[in-house]
């Protein structure tokens, strides 16, 4: 807690000058008047000075305390440092209480409500753990004409849109005999971006599409990747002439290269169902946590390589982010992911319907826990429509079934066996399913998909 001069600017809400409404007497005032009055009456009736002496401190304290009464409510302002933290990053908030009254407050009790995912703690920075604690009221002194700031700081432990506030404060004056009405501020929204799991994929994209990029395509053209040596033809550039082969064969030969192209990656989030309990960063992950973090990592990786990335939602809201490239798109993806919530729906589009909105050359990475039968149907439908689909299993590995009765374990094992069976069937349909494991998760399956893309295939239309 720190004190400083009153800053300029509004402190909400504006205090009223109607003391009758703003300040109320506490029970202590009635108690002091009652006991002092009874003592004085008894002193007069019994003719005793000792009772006057007993009553004197009480009567004096009331007169002393109420000689100067507060009139206005304290001003209150809640602010936060405008930063964009990722999970585990620090966040700061300040609650400022101002006293514009003619008398100082004995104390002000400040409450700040906030999302449980924001572990904000207040108090002096050098204070011990007993003096620092989350979600506690803070009691601070606010002298006359001074604004006192209660500073709170701590990590945001989970991604998402969190709420900070409302903050409330009430002041106590006249030695605890008067208490003010509570002053309440509005709430602030805080965006916490998901922490991207380390992700890297070295394998080639199945089909690069654009004109520029970092992927070697399977088509000849201007590029850096050597495709072979062939005879010189009209239109070939002289700097492509391979002089060593030309001297040996006594005919002009040029080095043929593969063109460098970019690709489109579609990240499809299956939000039909969620499972597991989120423990924030460093704790257990739910399906949604793994899906969002994996989506952020995949998007970051491919956007960093110059590809175009779009994000789709498979759920009730069916949100869609159009494909684009660059750092701006990465920030847009992160913003888009903040609004990802489980959204079960009775009717969901099939894979063929989804495929209509996805480019034929795009790599579709589906992040799914495969908890809903419709997810598997959607994957199969996408593959049948000729899209290059990779399914990433986002079901947490440490998920355990709560024992309800003696059959729980058996049913859980049956369900797992059925799920593995579904994954096997998907693989037969040409949809590899791989568990999310960060860096290199997709390399093995991308190799298979690339090989499939090179081969002729029959497509249902």
């Amino acid at each position, binding site marked *: *807690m720190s004190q400083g001069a009153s800053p300029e600017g509004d402190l909400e809400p504006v205090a009223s000058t109607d*003391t*009758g409404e703003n300040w109320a007497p*506490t*029970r*202590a*005032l009635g*108690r*002091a*008047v*009652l*006991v*002092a*009055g*009874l*003592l*004085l*009456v*008894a002193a*007069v*009736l*019994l*003719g*005793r*000075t*000792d*009772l*006057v*002496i*007993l009553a*004197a*401190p*009480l*009567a*004096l*304290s*009331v*007169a*002393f305390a*109420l000689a100067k*009464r507060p*009139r206005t409510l304290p001003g209150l302002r809640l602010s936060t440092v405008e930063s964009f933290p990722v999970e585990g990053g620090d966040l700061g908030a300040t609650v400022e209480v101002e006293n514009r009254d003619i008398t100082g407050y*004995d*104390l002000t*009790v400040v409450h700040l409500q906030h999302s449980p995912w924001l572990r904000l703690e*207040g108090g002096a920075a050098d204070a011990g753990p*007993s*003096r*620092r*604690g989350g979600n*506690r*009221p*803070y*009691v*601070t*002194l606010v002298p006359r004409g001074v604004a006192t700031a209660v500073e709170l700081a701590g990590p945001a432990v989970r991604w998402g849109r969190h709420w900070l506030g409302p903050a409330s404060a009430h002041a106590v004056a006249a*030695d*605890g*005999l*008067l208490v003010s009405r509570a002053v309440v501020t509005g709430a602030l929204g805080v965006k916490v971006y998901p922490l991207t799991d380390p992700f890297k994929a070295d394998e080639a994209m199945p089909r690069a599409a654009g004109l520029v990029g970092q992927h070697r395509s399977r088509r000849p053209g201007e590029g850096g990747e050597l495709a072979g040596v062939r005879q010189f033809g009209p239109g070939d550039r002289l700097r492509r002439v391979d002089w060593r082969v030309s001297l040996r064969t006594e005919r002009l030969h040029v080095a043929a290269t593969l063109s460098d192209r970019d690709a489109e990656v579609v990240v499809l989030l299956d939000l039909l169902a969620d499972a597991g309990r989120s423990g924030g960063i460093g704790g257990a992950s739910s399906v949604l946590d793994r899906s969002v973090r994996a989506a952020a990592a995949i998007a970051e990786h491919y956007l960093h390589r110059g590809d175009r990335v779009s994000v789709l939602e498979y759920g009730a809201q069916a949100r869609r982010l159009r494909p684009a490239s660059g750092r701006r798109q990465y920030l847009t993806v992160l913003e888009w992911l903040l609004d990802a919530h489980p959204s079960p729906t009775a009717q969901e589009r099939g894979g063929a319907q989804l495929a209509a909105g996805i480019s034929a050359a795009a790599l579709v990475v589906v992040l799914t826990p495969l908890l809903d039968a419709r997810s598997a149907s959607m994957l199969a439908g996408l593959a049948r429509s000729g899209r290059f689909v990779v399914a990433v299993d986002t079901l947490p590995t440490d998920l355990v079934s709560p024992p309800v009765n003696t059959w729980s374990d058996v049913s859980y094992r049956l369900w797992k066996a059925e799920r593995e069976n579904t994954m096997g069937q998907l693989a037969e349909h040409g949809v590899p399913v791989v568990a999310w494991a960060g860096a290199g998760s997709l390399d093995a399956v991308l190799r298979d998909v690339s090989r499939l893309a090179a081969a002729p295939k029959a497509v249902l239309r």
Partner: protein
Amino acid sequence: MKQLLSQVRDLGRITGGPLLVRGVVFVAAFTGLLLAAPGGLPARMMLAFLALAAVPALAPGGVVVTLVMLATVGMWLVDTVLFLAEPSTGRLLGTAVALYLLHNAAALAAVLPYDAIVDNQVLLRWAVRSGLVLAAAGALTVLLVTVLPGMYITTPTVALVVGLAVVAVAVALLTRLGRRP
């Protein structure tokens, strides 16, 4: 049962500042009862006083603080009026200080949430203001003891009526101070 468990769990959240103030409430209540009580009470009464003094510390915002203060005054009257005891000035001053501290610390404890992180300046300011009040009351006590001949004053009826009127005016003034805008 669930509520009880929740209350026991909440005890772990109590912080030093509120605990200190409630400790002052307990000590003041116990000291006041002890000083006001007639002499020669059985030891069992001490336990009763301890239990009684703990109640305002646990519920400083309740009516029990008033009841403990009235019990202290009542025992003082019983000792001095019925048993005709002659209390020393020290005992009188001690009881007055204990009564005031019980009231004042309970007023502070009532507005301090038990799990609040309290700025030390708050407690320091409170202690200074209490000290000022006690100093003024002490000066008044010395004045009364010096000027008046003894603890008992025989007064004529007219003086009684005038005294009651003065008390009524004083109480009305204190009440008005609490209500005026």
